[in-house]
Structures are given as C-alpha cells and as structure tokens.
C-alpha cells in the first residue's frame, strides 16, 4: 500500500480468498489434531471403533460442550463465567427439591431452566450494573451458588426423579445417537449461526475487541453482556438437566471442577481468552478432541489425571507451536 500512486484507488474487498484463510486457520490445525488422535486411538485399542462405544464416549463431553458454546460467546466478549459448574449444582438441587415435592418431568425442566436463568441474571447484573470484573464476580458466585446447594442438601441426596426424567441423559433419539449428542449437534448449529451470522454475534466480537468503541458505535453493550450471562446460565441449566438425568441423583458436589474443563475446551477451540476472536467450529472440534482423548486413554485404563496432563500439554502446545513455527520460519528466511 505504501508504493501506490496518488490517485483515488480501488480497494479490493478481500486480501486473500476464503479457502486460503480457512487453510491457515486454527480450525484446520484442530482438524489435523482430531484426525491424528482418532487414528492413534483406533490402532491403540480394538474397542475404539465400535459405534456403541463411540456413542458412550460422547457422554464424556456433550454436557460440558453445551456450556462451552455459551462460554465461548462470553469469552469472546472479553468476560468469563467461572460459576457455570456451580450453576449446574444449584440447578440440579432445585430440580431435586422439586422432584421430592412430586413435580413431574416438564415442571422439573421448567424449574431447572428458571434456576439457571436466575443465576445467570445475578452474574449479569453484578457485571453490567455494578461494572465489576467478571472473573472475580464469578469466583464469588461460584462459591455462593454451590454453597446454597450445600446448605439445602448438606450430606443428603435427592434421588427420587420421575421415570420419564431419565430420557434426557440416558435416552436415544435414533440408533446410537443419544439425546444428549443430538442436543449437542443442535446447539452447535444454533450457536454457530448466532455468533457468525447475526448482528448479535457481530456485537459480541465488537465488545470483545473494544468495549468503549462498541458502545460509542451504538452497540448496547450492557444488554448484550447481560444476555450472554443469561445464556451461560441457561446452558448450564440444560447441562444440569442432562447430567442429573444421567446420574439419576443430586449431590451438592455434582459437576465439581467443570468450570476449568469448560474454559479449557473453549481456549483449546481457539477462542482468545483476551476476547475478540474465536469460532464455534473450533469449540466443537475441541470438544471432540477432549472427548476422544479421555475415551482413548480410558480404554487403555490410563488414570484420568494422566489424561489431564495430556490436555494441559495440548492446551499450551497448540498455542505455542504455531508461534514457534512462525518464529522459526522467520529465522530461516533471514
């Protein structure tokens, strides 16, 4: 651009074609990693390529991924919600309480969704109304929400869920496709459309890049952020319905530590923790990768903590490797 002459010039729309950009993207790196892990797994264990086993394996990640979709949007907008796992616990407790009062399945779902939304609204209000940093607000509500579950339940458990409630976590829509997995696919499409094809999604990116400029540009920043926290509350509630249904019982320690796994999934999916960039496709791939790693290691009876080491390395190296590669290339060029 520096060399061009002084006449009014025509500026092309795009510097490089879509396919060129796609090739260089984070998502294509993740696809390679996913294929690699899939191949290694199929060789490492004879049980891996069984459709029912693969279907069982999806339960390792679907619930967390549901939360991760909403979390991705929150992180892109430059915030974070560490209270999601506690919302799962509180929602589950609320449903358990309602079930103990004899509510039927639709009413339980309604109670769950309302509780999740209420928790999201509390986070949203604290962040948007009082202007507090979300990382500390949600560390606080993380203790608060789970703390309420502990006060309600103590050392007890709710176990009396109606028969039909089991469908969400244990039912199959068709053949090996579980209800949870279909929910996962459906929400993947929904969130991809929301983030990439709508004005709302554009606003999320704008806020994450520069909140003040977005406000000046007519983006309703507080409203968008509040909505995002409502969404994480809602998705946590949906995940809670699935998990509670799958376990058939509620303890206050349910879903302990999930917040970090969800954040890991989001970051592994290429969402910038600093806000402003990331895609739902990346999160879907990251969910699949984490699920396959957990399952593959599980088949080899590798302890869970070793899998988490692997995920930890993956997290750092998928970010570090492209940087190191670019640096190496530059050094070679000189």
């Amino acid at each position, binding site marked *: *651009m*520096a060399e061009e002459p002084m006449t*009014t010039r025509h*500026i092309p*729309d795009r510097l490089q074609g879509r396919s060129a950009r796609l090739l260089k993207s984070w998502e294509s790196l993740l696809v390679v990693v996913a294929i690699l892990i899939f191949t290694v797994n199929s060789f490492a264990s004879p049980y891996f390529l069984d459709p029912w086993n693969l279907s069982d394996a999806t339960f390792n990640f679907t619930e967390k991924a549901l939360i991760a979709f909403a979390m991705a949007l929150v992180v892109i907008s430059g915030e974070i919600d560490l209270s999601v796992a506690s919302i799962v616990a509180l929602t589950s407790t609320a449903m358990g309480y309602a079930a103990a009062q004899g509510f039927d399945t639709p009413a339980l779902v309604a109670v769950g969704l309302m509780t999740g939304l209420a928790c999201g609204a509390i986070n949203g209000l604290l962040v948007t109304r009082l202007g507090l940093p979300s990382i500390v607000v949600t560390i606080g509500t993380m203790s608060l929400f789970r703390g309420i579950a502990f006060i309600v339940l103590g050392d007890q458990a709710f176990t009396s869920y109606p028969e039909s409630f089991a469908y969400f976590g244990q039912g199959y829509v068709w053949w090996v496709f579980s209800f949870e997995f279909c929910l996962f696919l459906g929400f993947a499409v929904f969130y991809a459309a929301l983030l990439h094809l709508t*004005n709302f999604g554009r606003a999320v990116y*704008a806020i994450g890049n520069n909140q003040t400029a977005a406000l000046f*540009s007519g*983006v309703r920043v507080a409203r968008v952020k509040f909505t995002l926290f409502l969404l994480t509350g809602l998705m946590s509630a949906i995940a809670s319905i699935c998990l509670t249904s799958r376990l058939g019982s509620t303890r206050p320690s349910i879903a302990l530590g999930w917040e970090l796994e969800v954040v890991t999934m989001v970051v592994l999916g290429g969402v910038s923790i600093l806000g402003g960039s990331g895609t739902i496709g990346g999160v879907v791939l990251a969910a699949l990768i984490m699920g396959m790693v957990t399952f593959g290691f599980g088949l080899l009876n590798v302890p869970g903590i070793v899998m988490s080491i692997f995920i930890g390395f993956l997290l750092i190296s998928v970010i570090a490797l492209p940087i190191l590669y670019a640096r190496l290339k530059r050094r070679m060029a000189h």
Partner: protein
Amino acid sequence: MLQDTTTLRMKPAIALEGISKSFPGVHALSDVSLSLYPGSVTALIGENGAGKSTLVKILTGIYQPDGGAIRVDGAEVHFPSASAAARAGVTAIHQETVLFDELSVAENIFLGHAPRTRFGLIDWTKLNADARQLLSRVGADIDPTIRLRDLGIASKHLVAIARALSIDARVVIMDEPTAALSYKEIHELYELIDRLKADGKAILFISHKFDEIFRIADRYTVFRDGRMVGDGVIAGTTQDDLVRMMVGRDVGQVFPKQEVSIGGPVLTVSGYRHPTEFEDINFELRRGEILGFYGLVGAGRSEFMQSLIGITRPSAGAVRLDDRVLVIRSPAEAIEAGIVYVPEERGRQGAIIGMPIFQNVTLPSLTRTSRSGFLRMAEEFRLAREYTSRLDLRAAALDQDVGTLSGGNQQKVVIAKWLATKPKVIILDEPTKGIDIGSKAAVHAFMSELAAQGLSVIMVSSEIPEIMGMSDRVIVMREGRMVGQYERADLTAEKLVRAAAGISETTP
C-alpha cells in the same frame, strides 16, 4: 542563517545512517539517514504513516532497526532497550502517553532510574525532593507525592516533560508534543524548547502544524513512505515547498469551505447541565451549518457532546431535533434518532483495531445492512467501499484489520463509520487531531460537502485555523460553560483565545 552555519560546522550529537525497519507487510523505514546537531531544532515532517514515530522508537531503543547504524559522537551504538538509549543521553516525549496513573508523580518522573540508598534500596526522600526540583524547572506547581491519576491533562503533560528532563540528555525528541495541548501551554513549551536549545541540546521535533515548525525549527527533514525525500534549512523554505515534498504534489485549498445557504433550526439544546462537568448550555444548530466549538483542552466540550448521545447523563436540559423532543439514553438511540458523534480518542472510543475495516464501518449501521437480525456481507462491503473511497482511504483490502493502518487512515475509517449511518446531525470531536495535511484536506472537503447537502455539523476543535477556516459560527466554552458565540463574519483569533482563556475583552 548564522546559527545554521555554526551547526553545520559542528559534529552531530547523534547520527542515523541507512536505517531500515519493516513490519509484516510494511516497509516503515527504508534506508533513512538523519543527523541531529547540538543547540539546533530539526523538524521531522511527513504524512501519516511516513515512519516518523517508528524512527523515534528506533532512536529510543523501543524498536530494533533491521539494518543501518546509529552513531553517537561518531561511535556506533546499539540500544537494546529504552533504558540503554536513556543512558546514552537520548530522551523523548512520545506521541502516546507513557505515564502510570496509579503511581505518584515523582515516581512517574524517575521510574527506571530512581535514586538509591547505600543498600541499593529506593531512596524515597531524595526521589521526592529531586522530583520537586524538576517540576519547578518546567514551571509546574505540582505536589510530587500525589497520584498521577488525580492530575489534569495539562499537568500530566508537564510531568511527561519533567520525566524527559530527568535524564541528563543530549538529544531530546518530541513526537507531536502539541497535538493535545492548548494555546497557552503550547507557548510555554516553545519557551522550554528555546531554553533547551540554549543549553546545547539536540532536538528532534515532529509536528503536522506548519506554523509551529516555522516558529521553532532550524532545520527540516521530510519523510515520504518511509524514505527521506529532502532536508535542509528552514530559513528560505516555504510551507508550499515542504508540503510538495511531503505529499509529492500540490495540495489544494486547505479549508475548502463551501458557501451554503443555512436553513432553519435542526437541533435545539436548552438548559443542559451536569453536576460536575457543565451547565447552562443553550444553542441552536441550523440546517447546513458547521458550528464550531472552541475551547482549551479540558473545557468540557467532549463531556457535553457525549451527554448528547447518552454516554454521560445530564441532570437537566432538553434536546429537540426537528421539533421533536428527544430523550436519549444511549448511543444506539442517538444513532437511531440521527445524531452521531465521532469521538476524539480514536484508539479507545473510535476504532476497533482488531476488526476488519468493513466491519468497523458498518458497526453503527448494522440494522440497515442486515435483514431481520442476520448479517449480509455483500451489503456491508458495498457500504464500506462507498464511504472509504469518498474519504480516500489507503488500505490493501477492506478485510484488513484497522490496527494495521496508519493513524490518519484509522481516523478516516472512524469518520466513515459514522457518516455511513446517514445522520441528520454529525458531531466531530477533534476530527483532524494528529492527521496529516492531505488527509486533513480530504476530511474538511467532505465536511463542507455534507453541509452543502443539508447535513448539520458540530465540529469540536482546539485548532484556531481549523475553527476559523471551517465554521459558520463558533461557540467558545470554558470550564464547562458557554462563554461566547461568534458569527463567521466577526470571527478573530484573538477574540476566541481571550474568551477561551477567560481574559475579559477590556483588559489589554
């Protein structure tokens, strides 16, 4: 002339030879050479993105050059960090603020080279005493122990200057030091520069304002597209010569104000007040009018303008647009109503530098480019293309991130973004701050064109020539109040300055 022959006989304090620097995709500097002489002021001029600030950063050890050499007293040196450059006696007032709001004034001045006790610990007593001394040298009456955030913008600037002087420097660099300063402070700065010159410092002065270049510089160097295209002695050159070198062509009229027949009132503001920022604001903006708002920095103009679009909430007052009373609670509502505000802080409030040009341009207009909430990219590109080409934007592609553009081009994107909303009233806050003369002319021409089409414009500016050249009418603000209103016919620079500074007309 006399002084210049002496400098020529002298050895340069610092010399750059064949310096090059590239960023991914840009040759910011190619093979430039520049010498600075003791006791002499060299002006560095060039369009936005010509590479001036990059050169400053190389001189102060913030960037490393890709090639070439820096010589101090003839010996080649390397500046791996800012502190290395400081040790070699190079100090700078940078284009960006480089101060720390949360630290004390004294610490801001001495951060990185604080005096130590025998045990190697920081000596706070001496530090505060030294700071007090330095502040008085720049003529600032500031308590060095208070936190910087509690200072006004002008005082902060003085702290920045004190910091530059805290290093016993032989070379002092000033990158657009007057861009954010008011009339009075600019003149104090000139005096300070004269004193530094008399002390034998070599000074590099970067500015887009020709009046000040001719006021203080002895020599000039002109950059174009990262290359040096000319240098010489100021005496004997004219502004037109310099502009031609800078731009590579003649620039037409700088303030191309078109005569417009001004219509009836569009926007009426009455009784606007805010508990701490402003009060008693009453005026009327007419169709096709360019209304200038003049005042010193910190006069409260921006605060007031932002209250018109719902950022700050006024405690009382009413706005009417086309005889409709408006209650505006957010910029979104203002844009809907047809009032838009182009903010002054480009980096913070204006541009979203991590997003592509076209998305920046369409952000406030999304409701128009989308269909039932869904984006339409083709429509967005069309809108972006239309407005960026009208402002003569220079970019490689419309999906390029705004952050990769030079300052002036970023400003054009920012202006395009609000124009694309097709407003009835547009408020431009310091629209040409820090942009080069060519871009400035483009912005001004466009402003005139808009007014001619019946748009009403409010232009906030602290530059007298711009205010006088472009406005049909000028309102002067001081300490949050309107203190004067002048029609174009009876505008004089003196009246404006006096009103803004609070000097009554009668006293001489």
